């Protein structure tokens, strides 16, 4: 029980910190820590295979996608300035958070919990693999396709907000000496 509380604390704290921090890279890294916490939870629950898959996929791969997305995309220029701590924002936050909380509480309350502790099911990795490649093969393929599409979408998003290379080169060559390289935008 002690271990579970510790794991939950680390997971939730890093998730909360990921939301609150202004530094995007720190947020991404803390999100990864939170995913690692989830893997620790799976391990605690005895789901070895799922825990390692979680580390391999989330900590190893998805975190990289997130970091690349953060580094390759640029924030819109100029940054849209939203006044902090307005009543509107607080209201929207409360409504969204309340709705999610309601769904979760509803799900927890409505799911029947056995009065006595059921014996932990023992599922070998082989059984899991057979299930995944047999009955749930379609779902697995769909998830794979979905992730590929998401990745391609990220690449397109990152690639399109760049100026054509030829034009910017001409600008640089044609500018009179002494003028700044670019009038606005990011630093040279």
């Amino acid at each position, binding site marked *: 029980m002690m271990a579970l509380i510790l794991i939950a604390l680390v997971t939730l704290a890093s998730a909360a910190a990921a939301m609150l921090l202004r530094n995007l*890279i720190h947020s991404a*890294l803390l999100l*990864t820590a939170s995913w690692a916490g989830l893997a620790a939870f799976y391990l605690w629950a005895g789901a*070895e*295979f799922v825990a*390692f*898959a979680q*580390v*391999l996929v989330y*900590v*190893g*791969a998805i*975190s*990289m996608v997130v*970091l*690349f997305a953060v*580094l390759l995309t640029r924030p819109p220029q100029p940054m849209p300035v939203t006044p902090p701590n307005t009543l509107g924002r607080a209201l929207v936050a409360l409504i969204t958070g309340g709705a999610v909380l309601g769904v979760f509480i509803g799900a927890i309350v409505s799911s029947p919990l056995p009065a006595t502790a059921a014996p932990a099911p023992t599922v*070998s*990795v*082989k059984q899991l693999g057979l299930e995944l490649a047999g009955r749930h093969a379609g779902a697995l393929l769909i998830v794979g396709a979905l992730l590929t599409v998401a990745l391609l979408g990220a690449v397109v998003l990152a690639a399109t907000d760049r100026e054509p290379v030829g034009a910017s080169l001409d600008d640089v060559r044609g500018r009179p000496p002494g003028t700044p390289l670019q009038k606005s935008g990011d630093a040279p």
Partner: protein
Amino acid sequence: MNADSILERGPLLVRDWLVSFLPEPARWLAGSLLAITAVIVAFASLFALLTLIERKVLARVQNRPGPNRVGIPLTKIRLFGLGQPLADGIKMLTKEDIVPRSADRVLHFLAPVALLAFAILTFAVIPFGRHLVPVELEAGVLYFFAAGAATELAVFMAGWASRNKYSLLAAMRALAQLISYELPLLLSVVPVVMLAGTLSTTGIVERQGGWTFGLLPQWHVFTPWGAAGFAIFFVAALAESNRSPFDLPEAESELIAGHLTEYSGFKYALFFMAEYFGMCALCGMGVTLFLGGWQAPLSFLAFIPSYIWFGAKLMTLLLAFMWVRATLPRLRIDQLTRLAWKFLVPLALVNLGVAAFWSLSADWTGAVRLTRWLIAAMLLAGPFVLLGRKLTAGLAPRIYRYAT
């Protein structure tokens, strides 16, 4: 050799004897701690030795003596420079630890620590001998690659936290390399898991036991798909451990040591320690998956304890890594990614198909077995030649232009 002989069980007996001094509840914990200590001490001293061996091997290839001055302190005994690792360690420890003013201090500190921690974690599932596996996991192979995948994060942290454009650029290049080569590495392992029918490392080693004609070993590397898989694994492992000819991440001459630019003192040494640990772990995994793990190479040599065979195979692979480093020049980044995506990945996928054929034709008997071998080899050789030609089409022979 008898599985229960005194030599085979030796390390276990020593552990049990040491643990027996403790009260019953603490024994399990003490046993685990002993295993961890043994692994860390063994591989830390191997790391120290490897730094010297590597410099010696490189020197031998380049026809020079290599480090041969440092011996036993305060005497004139030199011992072929055996004291060099110790001197290097003291130098690294006493060097000033510089952190750039604008660096992200926490991440700058965490990066080498995380890298080393994950590198050490990978040793947990490697069977070092018949009875010597630190942790027996049902999904051991998956664990190994999960722990290894986290090293990418540490490289990124190092590059980003340094607040240096060279570091960040090099870290992104390193990530591109690590992610590209993760794919062929994993794909080359899949046939082994498929044919062995298990993800457990001990199970895979046991599946490679037994003797053909009572003499020759049945390691995976002696099958067509195993040989191709091992070749792909070897190349991908070179790239994953940032070894030459894939040492672009640190590329001293182009990227001023890449993500290590802003590291000095012992943090720098930690990066190198992690790199060597990663190399040892990947070589150990290669031995486990393809080279029969702790099994003896010939049936009459089985009287030598299993852990000695594992160590010998591990050292052979490590020396092969050094040989490659001394022989091949560094690749350019586009050549590097092209090799991974256009050659190794398709070849690994073809190999998967060949492994499926091998698995389906397992009940062929008699002379047909030779045909099975030939068909599988042809299925691999064809794509290999075609892919290789396509890879170099329009690019070779290369014309070198020199500045005049």
